[in-house]
């Protein structure tokens, strides 16, 4: 392991993680490790057991002793609404039930065993209604559960001949463009739910005092929780205090839901006048919290006989679940990635997200892109098959380069590393030789290799960062130290270490001289959410800028009054009492985006990658073993190479799970496998040897010499690379996920 250098050059060096010792030795305190507060009671949620119905009432068994049980119902909530994009999701159901596990009432009690009995002494009087459980039924619109047509959101991206006045003319245009092509290929691709399965379930502790409400818990985005609490509890900003506890993973799953559980705990604390602890067990966590949106993507493309891509027509359908939550943003990112990493003259990409009576789907690493990248990458393999061309050659021929324009008309300029990634991964893996040799069959086991190429927009979409105005503060502390105050949280991915490295180098001080304030809305400014591959690239850039400004003031003091950096800093502090810099993110001015036409610079830049999977398929049982996984990723600049590779390998393993074994089993709107023993994620033994290459095509506006966001990208390419490898090994063509042995067996039987 590398050790922290005494020098001031920490960027690019894999310094020890600053949270590492505490986590490895067990001294880190996650929310349920925090000792109970005096008078603390335990809270619990009563949930609907049907996917849709009318809530007639809540009955408390009169023979039960309710004296020490607090019960919160909808009428106890100042504003019964969870404020995300819209306000339609109630904190507790009132009148109508729209999904199984929907919260209906909250209870709390000092005695956890009694709490369990109390839960059974309450009857939720729900009259079931027929439920809408899939996209097709929602689209058919016979029964309406949201708006006028069950549609949460639609987008349309048009380009070239697909771009005309209005949807109908645009569609006619793309159809004409397709008709003029040598080869037209159509396909339909499906993806399924995925549970984040962060190792630490959701949990919060809430209490009230003269300053207002305090909630501490496992979360990604302190200010999202702040906003939701403020609205539902009808409080002013200063009266809401949200603090992050050490957080055991999120992957997007702690983007929306912590607002809900924090609010539940706060409501129970408000009514009981006691501190309340709410910790989900694994089953409740899997059942109630958000998952990856299932999607159906239909694609028709036209190309020349030599494989030059011309026209793309795509239709994306996503299942948003019962409430809107963040679905429009997920759909947006999915739509913006549907064209893949390729050049198209003409494009028409439309997308629709619908409401169903299933728990709301939400943020999950990749945020809509893995679904559409699965589709376009599988479709590239289909085109290659149709024209008899090597799938990698087809990709190389059409892969975007600097100077090309994307489907939204964004002209790519700097830091466009697709080709470099492709070449590196091909060379490392020996792809061409293995592919040419054909599937290696040894007895009843066949080995194959397959590739995917993809890009992922880093940072918020379009004008997101401009509107958001993310902020950080850097303080000068005594002893020549700096403190970073940010709402960008470390949820296991290494934020606090990487930010320290960036600040240290910007200020010219050792990384051990930088502190990271506990993210609490009372002390840290709103840096925006910890999402969208934006932490290092966007927030890191202002950490760097603000640290440099503070250092410049100290250096000026040093020049004027002499002494060391520390002495000059201490002098400055004793004179000015407070030396801080609050910096607001300003995206590069050339980035222009039109939210109404969906044209322009969808993202400031993209991270690029090529994944190559080598698999063995047991021809008797269809078990797939991933033998090797190569990944070459253009990260701009690796601030911390070990953690950067860790993100790539971990994200890829999550993609392997999504592709091969993870599956939420549904029955009439209920989840049949809400446990770690039957929601199957890969174990370390299922993890293949990873061969990860970092390519650095610097993005000049990123920190540390050009870092780009790569948190989500590794989730995008694993599934299609595996599908291509399985196809190479067996000839089985999977267009739907997951590729479990059962499904491959069915494919083989029907092939």
């Amino acid at each position, binding site marked *: 392991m590398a050790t922290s250098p005494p020098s001031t050059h920490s960027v690019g060096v894999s310094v020890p993680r600053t949270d590492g010792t505490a986590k490895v030795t067990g001294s880190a305190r996650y929310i349920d490790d925090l000792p109970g507060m005096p008078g603390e009671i335990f809270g619990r949620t009563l949930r609907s057991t049907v996917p849709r119905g009318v809530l007639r009432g809540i009955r408390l068994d009169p023979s039960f002793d309710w004296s020490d049980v607090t019960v919160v119902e909808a009428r106890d909530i100042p504003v019964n609404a969870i404020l995300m994009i819209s306000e339609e999701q109630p904190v507790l159901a009132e009148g109508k039930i729209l999904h199984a596990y929907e919260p209906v009432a909250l209870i709390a009690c000092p005695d956890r065993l009694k709490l369990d009995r109390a839960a059974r002494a309450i009857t939720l009087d729900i009259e079931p209604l027929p439920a809408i459980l899939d996209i097709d039924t929602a689209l058919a619109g016979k029964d309406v559960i949201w708006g006028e047509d069950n549609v949460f959101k639609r987008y349309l991206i048009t380009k070239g001949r697909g771009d005309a006045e209005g949807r109908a003319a645009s569609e006619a245009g793309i159809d004409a463009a397709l008709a003029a092509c040598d080869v037209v290929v159509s396909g339909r691709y499906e993806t399924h739910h995925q549970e984040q399965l962060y190792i630490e379930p959701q949990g919060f502790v809430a209490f009230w005092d003269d300053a207002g409400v305090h909630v501490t818990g496992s979360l990604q985005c302190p200010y999202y929780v702040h906003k939701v609490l403020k609205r539902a509890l009808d409080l002013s900003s200063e009266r809401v205090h949200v603090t992050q506890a050490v957080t055991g993973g999120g992957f997007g799953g702690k983007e929306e839901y912590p607002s809900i559980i924090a609010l539940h705990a706060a409501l129970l604390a408000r009514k009981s006048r006691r501190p309340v602890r709410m910790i989900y*067990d694994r089953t409740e966590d899997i059942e109630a919290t958000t998952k990856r949106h299932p999607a159906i993507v239909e694609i028709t493309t036209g190309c020349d006989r030599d494989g030059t891509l011309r026209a793309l027509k795509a239709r994306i359908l996503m299942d948003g679940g019962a409430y809107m939550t963040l679905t429009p943003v997920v759909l947006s990112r999915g739509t913006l990635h549907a064209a893949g990493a390729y050049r198209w003259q003409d494009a028409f990409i439309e997308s629709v997200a619908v409401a169903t009576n299933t728990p709301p789907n939400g943020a999950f690493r990749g945020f809509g892109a893995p679904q559409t990248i699965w589709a376009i990458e599988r479709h590239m393999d289909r085109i290659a098959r149709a024209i008899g061309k090597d799938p990698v050659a087809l990709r190389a021929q059409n892969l975007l380069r600097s100077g090309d324009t994307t489907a939204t008309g964004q002209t790519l300029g700097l830091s466009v590393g697709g080709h470099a990634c492709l070449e590196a991964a091909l060379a490392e893996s020996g792809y061409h030789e293995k592919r040419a040799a054909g599937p290696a069959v040894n007895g009843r086991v066949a080995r194959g290799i397959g590739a995917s190429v993809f890009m992922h927009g880093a940072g918020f979409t379009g004008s997101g960062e401009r509107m958001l105005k993310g902020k950080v503060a850097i303080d000068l502390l005594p002893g020549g130290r700096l403190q970073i105050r940010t709402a960008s949280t470390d949820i296991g991915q290494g934020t606090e270490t990487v930010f320290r490295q960036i600040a240290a180098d910007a200020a010219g001080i050792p990384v051990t001289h930088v502190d990271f304030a506990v993210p609490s809305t009372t002390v840290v400014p709103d840096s925006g959410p910890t999402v969208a591959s934006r932490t290092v690239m966007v927030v890191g850039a202002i950490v760097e800028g603000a640290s440099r400004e503070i250092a410049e003031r100290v250096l000026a003091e040093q020049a004027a009054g002499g002494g060391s950096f520390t002495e000059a800093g201490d002098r400055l502090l004793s004179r000015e009492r407070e030396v801080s810099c609050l910096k607001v993110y300003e995206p590069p001015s050339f980035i222009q985006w039109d939210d109404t036409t969906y044209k322009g610079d969808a993202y400031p830049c993209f991270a690029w990658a090529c994944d190559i999977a080598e698999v063995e398929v047991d021809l008797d049982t269809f078990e797939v073993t991933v033998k090797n996984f190569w990944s070459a990723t253009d990260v701009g600049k690796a601030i911390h190479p070990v953690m950067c590779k860790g993100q790539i390998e971990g994200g890829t393993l999550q993609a392997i799970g999504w592709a091969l074994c993870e599956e939420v089993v549904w029955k009439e709107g209920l989840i*049949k496998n809400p446990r770690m*023993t039957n929601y199957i994620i890969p*174990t370390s033994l*299922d993890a293949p040897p990873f061969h990860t290459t970092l390519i650095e095509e610097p993005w000049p506006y990123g920190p540390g010499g050009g870092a780009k966001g790569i948190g989500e990208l590794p989730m995008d390419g694993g599934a299609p690379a595996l599908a291509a490898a399985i196809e190479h090994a067996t000839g089985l063509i999977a267009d739907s996920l997951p590729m479990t*042995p059962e499904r491959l*067996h069915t494919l083989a039987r029907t092939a």
Partner: protein
Amino acid sequence: MSVSDLRLFEMRRPADLPDVCAVLAERVSRSEPTVLLAGGTDWLVEQETRPAFAKEAALPLVLDVSRLPALRGITLDGDRLRIGAAATYLDMRRDPAVLARAPMLERMGRDIGAIQIQARGTLGGNLATASPAADGVTALAAYDATLVVHSVRGERRIPFASLQTAYKRSTRAADEVIVAVEIDLPPAGSPWIWRKVGTRRAQSISKVALAGVAVREGDRLTRLGLGMASVAPVTALLSRVRTLATSRPLRDLTAADIDAAVDADVSPIDDIRSTRDYRAHCARSVVRAFLRDLGAPV
């Protein structure tokens, strides 16, 4: 569930086997809840899924049998291997007699949960829980093992074939403690198979698992023991396959005959872990693969 939700229980560590048998007999006769605890890897999981907080007159009594000398130890006496009910999978994996004479047990042990479970879990617990997915039971079925049980009435020996009666039910009485299993071993070097088709490579419950041991003389099988997990309400003994494969020279076995025998021996179902069709397909494939390895032209 968290540890704070664990219901209260009383725990004792009896001094010896007669002590366990006596306490157990008395409590069972009074219908008082009593648990023998070996590795605890099944029992603890049951605590989470049990119907919560039924009103109980008395606290459940947990008797820790994991350290009873009578239940520990693995011994080889001639061709007879005796494995204590409280020996762990890891004990088995490391035992020289198992490695030399019953390598299938060692191989099976590697597929149990992961190393942490192997270090605690026991054959006694696996047999008592009697899940049709139990890997240890499946391996013992192939060896046609004999259960040695003890109660206040003394020792009783239960041949594997008369052990299982229905889903998680057996002919062992509620007051009988499993002391050991005994296996009449095939000659050293005899062919065997352990093939677990699970959900992943560790911490996995069998979708289908095949255990097999055989003794081959020329082109004939003189002994064939088989067990299969997760294809029936109890561990499948594949009796038709056994009869078929020992009734004629290996060269006369056909894939169609084998498949038909397997189909008649198993009755898989759809559940959250897998499907009926896939299980039936795997059952046929793994049996054919074993017989192919033994020399059948299939």
